[in-house]
């Protein structure tokens, strides 16, 4: 049974320092919950502690990690998992998610979400690491589909089959990033709706939407620094019609616009969410 939490319905927003004051003091009714990255907060004092405290007083929080890197061949960092579990417990997150990628190698952190080959071996390796991580976490765990610009070597599976293989073998849930699906579909020339249909949609616990950069020759780069485009709004509507009322997060990590512009995006997402799900959050 898909994990749910009545606090997490409708639209959420990523808690980022440049947005924190507005989130706490000028949030629109369409904003119902927040997402935080534990890496920004664990073992840290000062303004981020205050920001988290003020945000928690107003909104429920869910956690979304950046550096677990389940696809990495490095050993899992037990100290990181211990800190992560404590943080997830402390903020009462209903589930935790991270990316289906690698980002460190031989102890060197590249601070990017890098692609892993769509092979059966890679799926088995990743699923084993996810199971290990899940055993250390106090809440359900979800993997996010990646935006990727190139594939290392020859693929044995298509991306949807690869995601399904990892989820089936690990028992993890899916964080469906609709913008990533769109970016990949445009860059690699497949149909975004067919891709979504090929995913195990009963495993989706949450969705992400974000803006991306359109570079030379129409190539799309996942930046989280631009407004959400119309096509991604449409794709979100399509995805929500198929998953039912799972919570949707707007990611805006760079180039924060005037708060009013972000509120417009939240309100538009809220309207799409209500229309697609038939639910009033």
């Amino acid at each position, binding site marked *: 049974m898909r994990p749910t939490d009545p606090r997490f319905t409708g639209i959420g927003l990523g808690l980022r320092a440049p947005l924190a004051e507005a989130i706490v003091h000028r949030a629109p009714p369409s904003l119902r919950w927040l997402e935080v990255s534990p890496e920004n907060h664990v073992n*840290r*004092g000062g303004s981020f502690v205050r920001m988290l405290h003020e945000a928690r007083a107003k909104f429920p929080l869910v956690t979304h990690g950046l550096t677990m890197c389940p696809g*990495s061949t490095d050993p899992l960092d037990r100290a990181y998992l211990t800190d992560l579990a404590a943080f997830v417990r402390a903020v009462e997150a209903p589930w935790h998610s991270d990316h289906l990628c690698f980002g460190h190698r031989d102890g060197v952190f*590249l*601070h990017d979400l890098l692609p892993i080959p769509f092979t059966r*071996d890679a799926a088995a390796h990743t699923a084993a690491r996810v199971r290990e991580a899940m055993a250390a976490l106090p809440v359900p765990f979800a993997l996010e589909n990646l935006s990727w610009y190139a594939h*290392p*070597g020859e693929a044995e599976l298509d991306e949807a089959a690869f995601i399904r293989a990892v989820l089936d073998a690990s028992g993890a849930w899916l964080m469906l990033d609709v913008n990533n699906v769109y970016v990949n579909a445009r860059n690699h020339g497949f149909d975004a709706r067919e891709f979504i249909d090929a995913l195990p949609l009963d495993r989706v616990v949450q969705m992400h939407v974000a803006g991306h950069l359109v570079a030379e020759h129409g190539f799309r780069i996942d930046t989280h620094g631009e407004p959400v485009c119309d096509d991604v709004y449409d794709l979100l509507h399509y995805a929500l019609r198929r998953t039912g009322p799972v919570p949707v997060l707007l990611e805006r990590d760079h180039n924060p616009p005037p708060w009013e512009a972000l509120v417009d995006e939240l309100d538009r997402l809220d309207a799409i969410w209500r229309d697609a799900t038939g639910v009033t959050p």
Partner: protein
Amino acid sequence: MKLDAAQSTLARLCLDRTPRDEDLTALGGDPLRWLLYRHLVRGRFVDTFSDALPVATRALGREALGTMVERWLAERPPTTRYVRELSLQFADFALDHALPEGAPPWTADALRWDAAVMRCHIADDAERVPVGPFAMDRPVVLTPARALLRLRWSVHRDEVPTEGEHALLVFRAEDSLRVEALTLDAFSFALVTAMGAPHTSLTGAVYDVLARHGEHANADVAAVLASLLGDLLERGIVRGSAPDGA
């Protein structure tokens, strides 16, 4: 391509000073897309340091900063998962190596200052050591959000720094959570340094410093000490004393 080979190859492509043709060939597909990864990874580090090391970036300029980042990635790449610690690792590397030719003479001080500010800004001040009432015969408990810094250039104060001796206590203010700096005289600087030594009572620290400075306890020293301690207690830099048995 095996998972292990894919990761070592892509990591090398992102970190090496010059991308290798054999890595691009091994990864397959359009080389430009792999070079995009390299560009994004490297650009993110430069952006991070531009924000986190503003004074040093102003001194170096973005191009020279980028050159230093290239060298850092190739020689001592980042080993932390926390973005907030990246600039500290980079500053340590830059201070261990020759700075770019043409960099102004205050660049090293700018790196030290920016790193001290960052350390204070992010320091975890959750109570991990017991704190008792302030007592002269016990070790002092200082805030972890502090750094002592000796600078030869006024990078902490001036857009165009001037040369001179600056002994600073950098700390995070309790109320505003902003990072500030107190200018200390030589005696006070030595005393705050001595206070940071574990298992040394405050009285012991004072006598150690007096002995090193060739001075004796007298009314002037007592007045300086009282003023300094009052200031440090008021600002929350001194939190109290280690209780008996701690």
